């Protein structure tokens, strides 16, 4: 998917995360992470973000995540949502069948 416009998903409530995505002007993928647990889980959070971008075929995006202790599955859900919003596309749920 191609990120066409800036988009946001998630909240700053406990156990959630807020993710902003925008086109990165051909500079590839950049991830900016802010989390109280970055020392312990930073790599894992970045990996989830990276994997979701790959799954959706996103090659050019600037991703900012403010994590408030979100579970991995919450981060994934927020990423999936923000990518679809930024790409202005509905999710094709049949893609889940191959996973």
């Amino acid at each position, binding site marked *: 998917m191609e990120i066409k416009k800036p988009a946001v998903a998630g909240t700053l409530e406990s156990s*959630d995360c807020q993710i902003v995505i925008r086109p990165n002007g051909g500079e590839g993928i950049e991830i900016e992470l802010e989390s109280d647990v970055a020392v312990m889980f930073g790599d894992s959070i970045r990996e989830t973000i990276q994997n979701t971008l790959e799954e959706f075929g996103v090659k050019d995006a600037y991703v900012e995540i403010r994590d408030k202790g979100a579970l991995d599955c919450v981060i994934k859900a927020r990423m999936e949502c923000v990518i679809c919003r930024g790409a202005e596309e509905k999710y094709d749920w049949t893609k889940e069948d191959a996973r």
Partner: protein
Amino acid sequence: MAEKTIHLKRTSLYASGASPVNMIQAIFYNEDMLIYDLEDSVPASEKDAARFLVYNMVKNHRPKDKYVCIRVNGIYSEYLEEDLQAAVRANPDCIRIPKVEYAREVQDISRRIAAIEEKIGLEVGKIELICNIESYMGVINAMEIAHSDPRVVAMAVSAEDLTASLKAQRTKKGLEVFYARNAVLMACRSAGIDALDIVFSDINDKEGLEEDTALAKNLGFDGKTCIHPRQIDTVNSFFTPSMKEIKYALRVLQAVEEGKKQHKGAVTLDGGMIDKPMELRALTTLAQAKAAGIRTEGMVI
């Protein structure tokens, strides 16, 4: 004795699909049924986000000891098709349909679920349905809805929308929904499915909750929807069977087993025939006892 899966439905608790913390906390309470909600608790601007959250939560963070349910958006809403696509793939125990009024609506949804189940290789018919009855038309047609599809395992009365559709005033005593509760209950009994009672809205009135739950239990309901986690233990306690009920259930099951050993087609107890619904009721009673921590193994009956 042959093992049968009995899913208790003494208490149901909604967790908003818009709130990760709500969904995570709901796992730690004692409700039998956890309902991940895509409908009323989710604002229109967050329907897409809630769908992703609920899908990922049920898929990856599902509680093992609860009956897991997803409430989709209304039958005629623009969100339903995508809700079903996501919900079926999450593979919950059940999908809860709001504001059901006609049998054909349930049959249509069941067909759509079957098409997805087939496509993804799930056993067709595995996902169960609970129909929320929330209008006078739903109450009038409760019987046809209860019998509409083999997937339907329960119906739940919802008082707030129902009173609005009746132009009635919602009161604590609930006289205005008394007929509806009974009509839905009788339809459920006729179809051999569970009947789930209305919520008691005042979370600070424990006495009122006890009175209302006692009424629900005495009328014959199998459980009650809770509006707040603090109501769960109270409601569960009312749906804990008495020793007399437990012993009778054990006797029913013992008679059924004896009948099987002797290859009897019909089994009797105390001069009366034991039919399939009686056997299921006995199994449910024992499951309720077990959930309340009562040990029935070796009990003298």
